[in-house]
């Protein structure tokens, strides 16, 4: 099929983009990489009357390292982030998760901001940003605001973004000393959306105990799920195989209420979460110890 007709705008600045969004409030949609929006338009599941193409706004793309951490522009392509040396050093969890997203052609166009704003519960990056405790910068007619990734996700494919707002930048804090991270997922074929996945960050104290842990799950809820019970179970503990298993069991039994669908039953997703949280925590601990 073909997309339904729409009015097309290609602003050169964020201000111009915001003006168009404000003028057509509710009827206009930002177009980033188009790798989720255009398939939906091809099938007429989405029929925006106005498209605001963000691809010619240079200020929205780029990766900057600073003393506080990493800042990634919303329009930075997934492929560029995947290959960036600063990202590999300062946010290895992001680098580890990216190759799991679809295929090279899609990552070449698809953007970080587009994936985060799209809020697919099966997407990798939202869970990664929740695990990293990243902050999203949004701008709109009422100015600029920062919001924690955890608060940004409000439900199935829904976020805190107002229709006249843009996600402009993602801030990822610098990794804590003696910390490690890991990303694992299970998909039917590499590149498919995951049946379940885990992004974990663990920080150790001087005695090698878990000082803090953030574990985020994908594909098992309405959006990324922060596994609070699992983190509680392990915080302050020595990271023995038993403690890790306890956290994994807590994740599978208390943190989630997974959906069952044609891809996987709820029971299978629970099983996967138990196994994957264990693997992710083990790996993250090993990495934290080697720092």
């Amino acid at each position, binding site marked *: 099929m073909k997309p*339904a007709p729409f009015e097309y705008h290609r602003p050169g600045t964020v201000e111009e983009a915001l003006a168009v969004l404000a003028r057509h409030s509710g009827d206009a949609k930002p177009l980033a990489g*188009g790798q989720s929006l255009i*398939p939906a338009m*091809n099938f007429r599941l989405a029929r925006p009357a106005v498209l605001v*193409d963000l691809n010619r706004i240079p200020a929205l793309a780029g990766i900057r390292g600073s003393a506080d951490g990493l800042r990634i522009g919303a329009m930075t392509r997934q492929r560029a982030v995947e290959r960036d040396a600063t990202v590999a050093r300062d946010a290895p969890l992001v680098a580890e998760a990216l190759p799991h997203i679809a295929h*090279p052609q899609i990552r070449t166009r698809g953007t970080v901001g587009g994936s985060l704003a799209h809020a697919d519960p099966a997407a990798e990056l939202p869970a990664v940003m929740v695990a990293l405790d990243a902050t999203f910068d949004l701008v709109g007619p009422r100015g600029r605001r920062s919001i924690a990734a955890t608060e940004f996700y409000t439900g199935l494919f829904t976020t805190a973004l107002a229709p006249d707002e843009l996600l402009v930048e993602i801030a990822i804090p610098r990794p804590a000393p003696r910390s490690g991270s890991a990303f694992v997922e299970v998909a039917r074929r590499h590149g498919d959306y995951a049946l379940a996945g885990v992004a974990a960050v663990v920080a150790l104290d001087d005695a090698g105990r878990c000082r803090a842990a953030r574990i985020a799950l994908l594909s098992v809820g309405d959006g990324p799920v922060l596994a609070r019970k699992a983190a509680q179970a392990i915080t302050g503990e020595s990271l023995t195989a038993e403690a890790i298993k306890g956290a994994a069991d807590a994740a599978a039994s208390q943190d989630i209420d997974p959906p069952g669908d044609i891809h996987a039953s709820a029971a299978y997703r629970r099983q996967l979460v138990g196994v994957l949280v264990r693997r992710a925590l083990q790996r993250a601990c090993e990495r934290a110890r080697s720092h």
Partner: protein
Amino acid sequence: MPDPKATISFELNGEPATLAFAPHKTLLEVLREDAGLTGTKHGCELGECGTCTVLLDGTPVLSCLLLGLACAGHRVTTVEGMAAGGRLHPLQDAFAELGAAQCGYCTPAFLLAAQALLAVEPRPSRAAIKQALAGNLCRCTGYLKIYEAVELAAARLRGEDATPARETLYGHA
């Protein structure tokens, strides 16, 4: 009322081009319907099959998920742009020689994705080839012949005298 047409100028297969088309068309539709270039194939329109792959500024992208309008000022290469001076590209020769194309519906896309790989990696490993072609589906060949053809063409492009690997689906012959 039909949409008024939009006009863009860009580089198409090495030549400057100006095209007018309905502004809501994807690049896939523009290429096939407005530029008359039907080498780019139409598959799922969902980003799943890869058969609509073209090169945008030398990098593989899915033309079904890109608006024609977004290509203004950019460089687009389709399979029609691969042959030069009446001679097929070494990848095209290798695909034909080794039977890497059967029904051929996926072939233009595989050729372009492989061309982009070889442009940056003249000596790719089998794993690198698989990764670069992971977004392209083929229902006929079983992929082995495609990997072999890319390896053969890569060797020829490096100026090496290459014999194709005698691999079969069941291992090495």
